[in-house]
């Protein structure tokens, strides 16, 4: 039996440099994409909640296009189709751009819903106190709506981290690509998949635990 030679620790320690490098790349792409997608999502979500002309319609189309096409197709378009227009993206750029665009679409839905859930009385109160529209947004709508959107937005962030594993298809050396490539040479497939499972579950479960903590800490006081 092949399992007789199962040696997870040996696999990890012999390839620790490559695997660590892959892990760092996963974290790097995830971090860029999480920040970028939050920025896109908050901006476009606010624009949609306020029905700002043009931006609002653009966002609606953007969200539907991203949600109704597989992310692998989006990655292929960026990596294999854009060069035809003279736009060449390397693997790293494709990786973070693809997940940022994907996450941005989902975040803009999260934040649109969150901001729409803010009671209009809060908004009117701020305007009555002399806040300008932008100041009303930053000081009243975003703090309240952002908290309402928080759980769903962290779920999106978790999906962003998981989706970085799809960069396997363009050969970007993040954790999944690295582990599978090594196992293709050493035939330690079971070890590679065990390692991937452990690392991703730890990442995802820690982020879910973070949601629960943040939900408690940032819960809106009763009655708001």
């Amino acid at each position: 039996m092949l399992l007789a030679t199962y040696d997870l620790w040996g696999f990890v320690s012999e390839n620790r440099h490559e695997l660590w490098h892959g892990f760092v790349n996963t974290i790097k792409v995830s971090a860029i994409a999480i920040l970028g997608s939050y920025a896109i999502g908050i901006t476009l979500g606010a624009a949609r909640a306020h029905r700002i002309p043009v931006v609002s319609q653009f966002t609606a189309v953007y969200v539907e296009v991203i949600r109704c096409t597989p992310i692998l197709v989006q990655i292929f378009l960026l990596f294999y189709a854009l060069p035809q227009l003279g736009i060449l993206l390397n693997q790293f750029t494709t990786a973070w751009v693809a997940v940022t665009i994907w996450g941005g679409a989902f975040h803009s839905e999260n934040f649109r819903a969150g901001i729409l859930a803010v009671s209009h009385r809060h908004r009117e109160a701020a305007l009555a106190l002399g806040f300008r529209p932008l100041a009303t947004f930053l000081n009243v709508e975003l703090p309240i709506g952002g908290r309402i959107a928080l759980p769903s937005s962290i779920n999106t962030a978790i999906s962003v981290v998981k989706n970085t594993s799809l960069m396997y298809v363009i050969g970007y050396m993040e954790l999944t690509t690295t582990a599978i490539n090594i196992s293709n040479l050493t035939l330690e497939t079971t070890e590679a998949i065990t390692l991937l499972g452990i690392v991703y579950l730890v990442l995802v479960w820690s982020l879910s635990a973070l949601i629960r903590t943040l939900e408690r800490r940032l819960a809106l006081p009763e009655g708001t």
Partner: protein
Amino acid sequence: MPDWASPVARYILEQGLPGMLRVAVVSLIGSTVIGVVLGTLLTIHFRPSRWLIRAYIEVFRGLPIIVTVFLVYYGLPPLSATLQFSPLNATAIALVLWGSAQVAEASRGAVGSIPAEQHEAAAALGFGWVGRHRYVILPQALRRLLPPLVSLLVNIIQNTTLAGVIGGLELLSAAQRQNERVAAVPPIGTGQIHALEIFLGIAVLFFIISFPLTRLAAYLERRLV
């Protein structure tokens, strides 16, 4: 349509589409059946079974689906030779593992939302646990489950593209093969690159399939809740 395009479209629709549909249908049915059963069992207050089902849900919802695909396709054969699957079957199994975890979570909520009176009334009529759920609780819970199931179908359709990663023939991998063939020198291809048209075409195809389904899910959500 230019000369190069019609064989490409024919290959994608004749070779890729059936693969995609097969994986999608099997995954949807498998996820629904297993998910509803697990979700219903999760409402029983018996700790060991709840822990087991919880662990199943958390693991398969937590793993990136591509890792689950690798797990089924590369990870199972070393355990036993009978666990060797074709790329399309392996993807369908992986999508069932992932999808049933999603459905289990949703149906736990749907089953839990049926008022206790329904259980009591069914018990008073002489139904046992199985009959009570089979004839009284689940038919009502399934109505509430319909919108998430349609959304799941959209996700499943998009994730069938993962079969291409392990060499299965579905829409995206069919497009990729045609993209490479078209770019090859004549007489095999045209020597020209048409990646943009081909992959945009695939994106449009997925959009045409998925968009009406997302509207349907939203409509059912409004109608049934």
